[in-house]
């Protein structure tokens, strides 16, 4: 690749999580699970005489995204008809935006693997409608389900600023995270609710003209996006090196062979004959409303991550893990805000090491779990006050997670309170040393590591409840005495 420079732009299509469709009252259903054609009406079936009416919530969701991606907002919006013939589109046109999209000239910073930040331009963010779904029959012919027809869809088009599969992945991952933070899209790529299509070309290093591009479609994961893009860059370089021309076409990804393949050759430029949709009057957004929506935006993941590092002293890794999902981040922040305001690092360790493990094992999300932020803070308090030791704390958390009980209740019910009674522990230690005279002898003769064995015996004798610091101290004293 060194002779060539990659030029990649991403088109992202994201369905908006409204209750009803973009231009009619049909429910937005899971287009993979729902029985076919159960959420359709004359509008989304494109029947003659139908009149679309814009869903106000969809406009607000789209505006949130355009603002979060630093776009300039067009207050004067026009819906356009994009004309083409394909049965997924019953009207023979898709309602979209063309000359006056909602947002233009935005940008997004992405973090590269070498730690650097790179700014990717965003050309436009516009509103449109999704299409129906075709199922091709083995014996010829196709079946069409229009449940997805007219589901609000957002198209986010980047500038061709991306230079590798890894950058494409970083950009798309960040966009998806932002959409989820904004509460407008679930990010489910398997179900096609979030779709990424890279336009890929290469050009000799140092030249400005774009090469012929290919478009990759039907990529159902970020890994496939990165791998498919990198494969395509190598393939195009080989084509040019062999003295041939890259053909403008749409290509798919074959997972088994791990390569791209030609799906559709674009012989001529598409001629969509965009025209303003006469059924939909222009939309004049109120500048005050735009500012209200901007003010109501949640803190976005990158700002949150920076704040966790600066204010909480968290490592980059911990901050990234905790800000990955907005609900997790808010759960964590609630815990941090609860008196007595434990060290955020301590809370972060408990969440990342213990809570996430329990969530993974039980396949529960933060919304499902029975441990509250206050519950975790109380538990950590018990450990810090040395009512229980750290290991017992982990067991108590598992019990809280399973039963929904408070940490204090678990400790009381199971008699888990740490033994910090000096006299009792000293007696236990004395007994253990007496029972293991031979070991004591070997310890005296220099087998220092046997100290761990005595420690283990004490913890076993106290069912793990002994205060380890105190045991360590008392054991030292007892062994010293034995030595004399």
């Amino acid at each position, binding site marked *: 690749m060194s002779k060539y420079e990659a030029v990649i732009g991403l088109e992202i299509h994201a369905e908006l999580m409204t209750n*009803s469709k973009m231009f009619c009252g049909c429910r937005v259903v899971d287009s993979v699970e729902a029985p076919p054609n159960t959420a359709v009406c004359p509008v989304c079936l494109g029947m003659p005489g139908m009149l679309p009416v814009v869903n106000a919530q969809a406009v607000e969701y789209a505006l949130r995204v355009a603002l979060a991606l630093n776009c300039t907002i067009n207050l004067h919006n026009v819906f356009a008809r994009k004309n083409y013939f394909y049965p997924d589109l019953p009207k023979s046109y898709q309602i979209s935006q063309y000359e006056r999209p909602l947002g233009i000239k935005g940008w997004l910073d992405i973090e590269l693997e070498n730690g650097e930040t790179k700014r990717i331009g965003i050309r436009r963010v516009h509103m449109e409608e999704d299409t129906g779904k075709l199922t091709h029959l083995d014996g010829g012919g196709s079946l069409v389900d229009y449940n997805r027809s007219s589901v609000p869809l957002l198209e986010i088009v980047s500038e061709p600023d991306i230079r590798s599969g890894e950058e494409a992945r970083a950009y798309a991952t960040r966009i998806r995270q932002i959409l989820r933070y904004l509460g407008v899209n679930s990010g489910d790529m398997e179900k096609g609710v979030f779709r990424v299509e890279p336009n890929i070309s290469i050009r000799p290093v140092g030249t400005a003209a774009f090469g012929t591009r290919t478009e990759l479609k039907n990529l159902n994961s970020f890994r496939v996006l990165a791998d498919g893009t990198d494969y395509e860059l190598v393939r195009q370089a080989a084509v040019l090196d062999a003295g041939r021309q890259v053909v403008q076409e749409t290509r798919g990804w074959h997972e088994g062979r791990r390569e791209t393949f030609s799906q559709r050759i674009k012989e001529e430029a*598409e001629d969509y004959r965009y025209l303003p949709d006469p059924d939909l009057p222009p939309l004049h957004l109120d500048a005050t409303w735009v500012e209200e929506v901007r003010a109501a935006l949640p803190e976005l993941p990158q700002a949150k991550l920076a704040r966790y590092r600066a204010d909480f002293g968290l490592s980059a890794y911990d901050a990234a893990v905790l800000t990955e999902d907005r609900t997790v981040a808010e759960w964590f922040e609630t815990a941090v805000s609860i008196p007595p305001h434990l060290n955020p690092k301590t809370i972060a360790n408990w969440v990342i090491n213990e809570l996430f493990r329990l969530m993974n094992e039980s396949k529960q999300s933060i919304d499902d779990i029975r441990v509250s932020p206050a519950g975790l803070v109380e538990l950590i308090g018990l450990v810090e006050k040395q009512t229980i030791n750290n290991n017992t704390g982990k067991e108590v958390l598992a019990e809280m997670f399973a039963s929904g009980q408070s940490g204090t209740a678990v400790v009381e019910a199971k008699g888990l309170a740490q033994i910090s009674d000096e006299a009792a522990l000293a007696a236990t230690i004395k007994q253990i040393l007496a029972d293991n005279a031979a070991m004591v002898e070997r310890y005296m003769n220099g087998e220092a590591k046997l100290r761990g064995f005595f420690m283990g015996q004490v913890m076993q004798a106290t069912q793990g409840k002994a205060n380890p610091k105190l045991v360590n101290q008392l054991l030292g004293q007892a062994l010293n005495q034995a030595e004399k």
Partner: protein
Amino acid sequence: MMALTKDEVQKIAHLARLALTDEEVAEYQHQISDILDYVAMLSELDLADLPPTAHAVGHLVAQQNVMRADIVAPSLPMDEVLHNAPQHAQNQFQIQTVLDDS
């Protein structure tokens, strides 16, 4: 004065999926050119200070920002959904295999 070529007429016909005879191409060549000439009269006016009009009634305040609340309304019952479908199967519209040449 803006006479379309035969090829341009054929291209427009293809975009609309219409098959035209040579006579029809010649006829539409005249008709469409006449329409374009008629509309071209607009360019005789100085419209520099006029904002583009995207909609016949879009300049009327009452016709702006017509939106609906995000409320679910009943969809069609299945027999009505498929009522006009020439062919259907499994509650879906059944169509001939389509070669996508868009």
